């Protein structure tokens, strides 16, 4: 069992105690949370701070392609871009990871080599999660065996919404166990909530705690396949959760908003929120990621604008 769970073993011991715990968490007032998120969004980030923020944001990107039409060629190209996002500028940092379906992991891994860029794989019958546990675990093991450094699993939203919290919990625990490697170099587990389906911020807070107690390394908003995907208020509540969890257990858990973050300005708003809500310790690709595809080029264009003083255009950046 993951060490985090031991602190809460009395909580996660039964459906009833888990429910009591999750429903005993402080409520979230939606209007107040949205107002706070909006207020943080009005921070004005200029000059050196902005340059730093853009580079950090690039380093936090999980460059993602999760399409039925993905091919080995496509993901190889994406992996190349991940290592050198701006071929014209060697000072431009690499992204954090490339995020693909499990069957593409080996290809991406091969391309990335020892670049330091991770391979992340969505697993567990992504995006709906509607499959038997065995299949989800097999899906996970498959990706881990192919070399995935990180597994992005989806929770069973149906189980969560019908109040079967323990089932969700146990599934996360099982998937985390499936992330283990014989050598001990376990894949990191990101747990996707699909907050657009959970709807309320109270649910976001509860599911965040549930996942953290189950041993998630990261908690992640969305698959990108459901609207709304990541939003500032949802991310705010998740950042509060990881902050409070560290306060309670001493352990840090990462946060990954995914989907819908398209502009550099948006990305900077998220970083401001990370800074002021969870704290500067989370301003690190080890603890905060952006699940995105088009965001990267927007960040690059802004970065170029900062260095050249003029606005750039999409023709000057590669599509993948």
């Amino acid at each position, binding site marked *: 069992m993951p060490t985090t769970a031991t602190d809460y073993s009395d909580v996660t011991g039964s459906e009833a105690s888990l429910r009591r715990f999750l429903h005993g968490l*402080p*409520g*979230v*007032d939606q*209007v*107040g*949370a949205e*107002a*706070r998120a909006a207020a943080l969004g*009005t*921070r*004005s*980030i*200029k*000059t*050196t*701070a*902005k340059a*730093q*923020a853009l580079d*950090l944001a690039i380093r936090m990107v999980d460059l993602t392609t999760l399409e039925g039409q993905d091919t080995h060629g496509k993901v190889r190209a994406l992996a190349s871009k991940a290592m050198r996002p701006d071929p014209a500028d060697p000072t431009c940092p690499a992204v954090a990871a490339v995020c693909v379906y499990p069957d593409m992991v080996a290809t991406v891994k091969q391309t990335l080599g020892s670049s330091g860029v991770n391979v992340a794989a969505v697993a567990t019958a992504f995006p709906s999660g509607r499959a038997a546990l065995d299949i989800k675990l097999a899906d996970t093991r498959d990706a881990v065996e192919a070399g995935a450094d990180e597994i992005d699993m989806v929770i069973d939203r149906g189980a969560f919404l019908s109040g079967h919290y323990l089932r969700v919990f146990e599934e996360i625990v099982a998937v985390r166990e499936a992330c283990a490697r014989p050598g001990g170099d376990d894949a990191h587990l990101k747990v996707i909530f699909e907050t657009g389906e959970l709807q309320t911020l109270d649910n976001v807070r509860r599911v965040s705690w549930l996942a953290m107690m189950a041993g998630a390394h990261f908690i992640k908003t969305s698959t990108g396949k459901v609207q709304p995907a990541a939003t500032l208020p949802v991310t705010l509540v998740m950042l*509060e959760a990881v902050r409070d969890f560290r306060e309670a257990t001493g352990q840090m858990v990462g946060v990954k908003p995914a989907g819908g973050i398209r502009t550099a300005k948006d990305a900077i708003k998220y*970083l401001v929120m990370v*800074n*002021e809500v969870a704290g*500067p310790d989370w*301003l*690190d690709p080890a603890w905060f990621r952006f699940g995105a595809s088009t965001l990267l080029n927007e960040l690059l264009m802004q970065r170029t604008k900062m260095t050249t003083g003029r606005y750039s255009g999409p023709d000057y950046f590669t599509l993948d």
Partner: protein
Amino acid sequence: MDFTYAPAPESRSIVDLKASYGLFISGQFVDGHGSSFKTISPATEEVLAEVAEADDADVDAAVKAARRAHTRVWSRMPGSERAKYLYRIARIIQERSRELAVLESLDNGKPIKESRDVDVPVVAAHFFYYAGWADKLEHAGFGTTPLGVAGQVIPWNFPLLMLAWKVAPALACGNTVVLKPAETTPLTALLFAEICQQADLPPGVVNIVTGAGGTGQAIVAHPDVDKVAFTGSTEVGKAIARAVAGTGKKVTLELGGKAANIVFDDAPIDQAVEGIVNGIFFNQGHVCCAGSRLLVQESVADELLERLKRRMGTLRVGDPLDKNTDVGAINSAAQLQRIRELSDVGEAEGAGRWSPPCELPDRGFWFPPTIFTGVSQAHRIAREEIFGPVLSVLTFRTPSEAVEKANNTPYGLSAGVWTEKGSLILHMAGALKAGVVWANTFNKFDPTSPFGGYKESGQGREGGRHGLAAYLKGGDL
């Protein structure tokens, strides 16, 4: 990573400050007969402009101009036409919003983020709202007969917003006004005078006389003033109530407060922390309805305070024109002195004082966000209005104790309640003696929503349909 925000100052260049300003009487800027005074930027102590100090003769001239405009023009004009002037003013305020916001922050010391996102937009909304009433008064239930000339004296904490609260309903109802802005913050009122000119508002409908207490007294005491509206301290409010005794002048008073912000153990805790911060540090705590007494249920007091302190650590105190500033400058040396005195009293009376580490600028008037813990009802800091960024923290055990403590004050302007239990909110809202109860929110203002206090926090309401009553004959709420 050290993610320090570089300064993001709003440009001052949009504001065209004159070296000196006269009085605005009968549509013209005129020299006063009295002396003049300087208005400074509280953030830097830099002199912004020289402003005329209206004497009795100037006030008399302004009242005469208002009377003339009322008799000859404004009271005769159909409401639908008055409405269009007010709509015009609302639009010009929107068009010149950046300029107004910068000027307000310069003269008052409040963060540009607040003047830009709260004060000025709500000012425009207020004119827009009351513009629409001007030709619908017969539906409001207070008659349609204006009082005549309204003498209005406003404070320095929300200079332009308080002007809007006073001028918009007065004009909509067909009154003309003589308004005195506070002596430390006259500039946006003078810019508003310019806006009246731009709107071609008939001369004398709005008159603005700058000055200090003496000018205000002259307005209140002027025999041809039919209505007195004042926002400011309870002490001055009482003096005004005495001054108008026996005169039959109608009075609206918007005075001090010592609001309780009550947090129950089942509160949405992160939003409650935001509400507490917004309640006491918004506008440097220069807010009559500030949540200056935090009443927290004992069972969550430690956790809440820990979160509150952490949150206070992220507040950015400094240059009001920096878009990232959360807490600006204290409005004046005198106010800073008062805040310091009462805080020292709090410490001397044994309350625990805490402020986050924050560097304050060398020049100007500054006070760090401060909380006092272990405060009891008997402490002066729990009873007197500090009107600064200073929060007194008290605890309670049961809802009835919370109500008792909250109501145990001569004030009754506002109160806050934080709990996820709906029936408790409604119970508390009913039991609290306060004109405005914010439940699971705080410091929200809207033109449609009446605002005003019980007991020594004032008389009458401003805003909403109820706000019309103050400016119509026979209109009592």
